[in-house]
């Protein structure tokens, strides 16, 4: 079985991992309540999408 010849240094490991970056989520403004929401998705604050209300979309106590 092929195995690495040398132990990978901490510097190399950390340099590689330094490239793992999270990207911010693009947010839009809810036209109904003005809260931030993701595009093409019902507003988690007021539960509306294209003037229709979805109670299932509203954020509840259990979700943060």
């Amino acid at each position, binding site marked *: 079985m092929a195995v690495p010849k040398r132990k990978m240094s901490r510097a190399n490991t950390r340099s590689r991992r330094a490239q793992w970056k999270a990207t911010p989520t693009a947010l839009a*403004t809810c036209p109904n*309540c*003005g809260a931030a929401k993701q595009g093409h*998705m*019902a507003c988690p604050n007021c539960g509306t999408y294209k003037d*229709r209300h*979805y109670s*299932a*979309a509203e954020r509840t106590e259990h*979700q943060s």
Partner: protein
Amino acid sequence: MPTPTKGPRLGGGPAHERLILANLAQALFEHDRITTTEAKAKRLRPLAERLVTFAKRGDLHARRRVMTVIRDKGVVHRLFTEIAPDMADRQGGYTRITKIAPRKGDNAPMAVIELVREPVNAKPKRAVVAEAEGATKRAAKEDAAAAEAAPADAPELEPLAEGKYGADSAAPVDGGLSPDPEKFTVKGNEDSMKYHVPGSRWYDSTVAEVWFTTPEAAQAAGFEPAGGEKAQEVAEDGDDEA
């Protein structure tokens, strides 16, 4: 005909997928609106729409074809007698999928899938567009009228330069400031044709091309509430948010 499904089935295999989709379809026709994951909603849509097509045909053969998927006679009865008549004028597109925020536990993208049972002709958007176009035309006319009227009473103009949208509007002074902060409080943006009341979200960042006394005056001049009607009600608590 629905496009054949590519890739792996839902659940543990083809039979399991058939069961999942049949149960979802049954729940959908029973409750009109169900919440499920986005992937399941997307798989359910072609099946559900096909069943609605059968229901619109309405004969015994169609009913038996539907019964092979949905085993509950009560739900099939509801589909044929209550849902199908609502869909009579609709040529496909019987369901609507709306994405909602991801699920808490596993962050799965969720969606609401519902039957579109409102009449086909109800097009609220069209009405809004027509109204907006009408308002734009009215504003253009008022513009022209104001332009004609302006030269006539230009000599005896009061110190406040009257805005071009009538007596309730005023041109800004010193590059955007209100000519009379007590009286003219509503900002109008001519580029977007929207107005902003004090304390609303974009009020501070807006450079006013025209000032109004009241939101009603702004609306009469063809300006729309920025961010919708609710965002531009004269709100005192708006300051807290900003």
